[in-house]
């Protein structure tokens, strides 16, 4: 695993000041795309930050700029104490991008091993790490299959394993749960928590906040390339003027009594009933985590 640079050890994982990302698109580059506009953001080490926003709000572009894959046209960005795109910083960053990993003809184990040997790891160490990670993300049984044949959820698990391969200090996860089944979402959440507990900083770009609701220390909402809101999820989203319970063990008679008591105390019952069990809960019970 890459050793942190001595001069950057403990450096602020991410500092972005007035960042703009702009490029030209379309035939002959006539269309100017301003993906990020004057964005400023500082992230503390070990925190899990959600980057939310509708499609096209600049989440992926921000990540790409941090990795040096998109042009920074104004402002600055420092990643792990180095300028954005610096190879030393990229080497300490794990990136889960949208879409599938390349080299679809390689077996899952081969691809992960390759990502180790490309980093200069000895083959035996790269293989051992690949096997351990495939087991961790639940792909050990299909490690010998070409990953181009994987389902979307399996491909995301493999991409996650790839992003975690070198135990990065900074994780950039772009729509990590897209196409994943409930168990995959659980796994993703669990691994993010693990990395954060180990001191890594995680940025999770998503528009499905429910997938990471409890894990987020902070929520940054982007819209049209600008920060619309920034703070703890509670501060940003606020609380509904309603109280919810999830109560087990009541029969219909007891439930009616509770509802009557709520009404007697001036409350207005917005929803009541016995909800259907979630698919995730059902799967966890049947086939385990």
């Amino acid at each position, binding site marked *: 695993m890459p050793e942190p640079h001595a001069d950057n050890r403990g450096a602020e994982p991410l500092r972005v000041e007035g960042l703009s990302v702009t*490029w030209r*698109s379309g035939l002959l580059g006539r269309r100017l*795309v301003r*993906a990020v506009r004057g964005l400023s953001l500082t992230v503390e080490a070990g925190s899990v930050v959600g980057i939310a926003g509708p499609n*096209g709000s600049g989440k*992926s*572009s921000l990540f*790409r700029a941090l*990795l*040096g*894959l*998109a*042009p920074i046209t104004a402002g600055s960005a420092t990643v792990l104490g180095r300028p954005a795109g610096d*190879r*030393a910083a*990229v*080497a300490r*960053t794990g*990136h889960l*991008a949208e*879409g599938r*990993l*390349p*080299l679809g*003809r*390689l077996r899952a184990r*081969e691809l992960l091993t*390759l*990502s180790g*040997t*490309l*980093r*200069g*790891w000895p083959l035996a160490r790269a293989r051992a790490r690949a096997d351990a990670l495939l087991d961790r993300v639940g792909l050990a049984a299909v490690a010998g299959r070409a990953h181009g044949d994987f389902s979307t959820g399996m491909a995301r698990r493999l991409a996650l394993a790839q992003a975690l391969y070198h135990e990065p200090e900074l994780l950039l996860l772009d729509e990590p749960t897209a196409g994943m089944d409930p168990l995959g979402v659980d796994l993703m959440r669990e691994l993010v928590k693990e990395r954060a507990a180990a001191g890594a900083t995680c940025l999770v770009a998503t528009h499905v906040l429910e997938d990471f609701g409890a894990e987020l220390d902070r929520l940054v909402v982007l819209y049209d390339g600008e920060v619309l809101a920034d703070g703890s999820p509670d501060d940003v989203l606020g609380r509904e003027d309603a109280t919810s319970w999830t109560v087990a063990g009541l029969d219909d008679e007891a439930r009616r009594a509770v509802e009557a008591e709520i009404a007697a105390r001036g409350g207005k019952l917005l929803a009541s009933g016995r909800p259907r069990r979630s698919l995730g809960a059902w799967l966890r019970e049947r086939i385990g985590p």
Partner: protein
Amino acid sequence: MRGAVAAGFRTTLAAYADPTALVLFAAAWLPAFAILLVPGSAEPVEAFGERVAWLAPLLLAPAMVTAFRLRGAWPALGPEDPGLVWLHGLAVPAWQPRLGAFLASLAGLAMLSVLGAALLLAWLAAAPGRPPLHEAERLQAMAPRDAPGAPVETLLARPGDREEFELPATTGAGELSLRPRWLLGERQPTSLLLGLGRRGGGEPLVLGSVVVPDVGREVRLPLPAAAAEGGRLRVVRESQPGSRLSLVLGELWRLGPELGTPTVALRVLVASLPAALVLLAAAWLASLALGPALARLAVLVLTPTVLLLLPAPLAGIAEARVEAGGSVTPWLAPMALALAAAVVLPRPLRLEDEP
């Protein structure tokens, strides 16, 4: 750096062990090779040579297959390729695994070509009734005047003037070519009488006469098996005086009486490798700096240009074709290369809204 180059090399080379790749390679290579190097049983040498000249670019089909495999095994060829993003995320300079992949593709190409040649030759040898491989081997024939300290060049000016050449021994019937050089004066068809003075001192062997046309070009003369032991070739001018004629001994062809050795097959194969390497190198270099469309265009234009300007890559295959009895058509191979390269370069990307 070495790790990334080695990883690219190993991964790409591993792709050649893929059964699909082997089948594709065999499907593309063996028919091309068979068409090129197996003459029909009654096919004259000249016709076979012409066919070889036109079909020689088919030998480049394996290069195309190889390049397809290269693209499939290692798609990080273009600047907008998703594989490039992946490599960047690994903090690996893209050129390193690309270099490894490129070297591996060359190694794979060479390995598969030799394997294919061996398989084909084994198959031909095992197939009863197959016409023999056309084995042609240029032998060294030297005129006495070419030897160090030889007297001044002999000219055939009057009837009875004589020129002599030293013919090496061959293994059977063959074909001799003479290249006339007309000197000053009016040209007219000139008849030459040829004979062979045997090494053992026996009766001279009359080989017949040939007419050298007034337009200078190669003249071919069949050599019977009786001439196989070699000796001193005597060329005597029969015609009336005219312009003076100088003769240069051209290639001496030897036809194998049975299935030939793999020499010619392997020679053509090896000769085609530089062209294939140029193809891959051009594709690789173009993809380093250019987008897919521009790279295609550049290779389409530049490859034939470079190949025509630099004869070295072509010299080998042209030589091999000549040895196989054909003439040289230098534009065919570059064009085939260019088309192949244009086809096998990275496919157009499905670009997203974001770069």
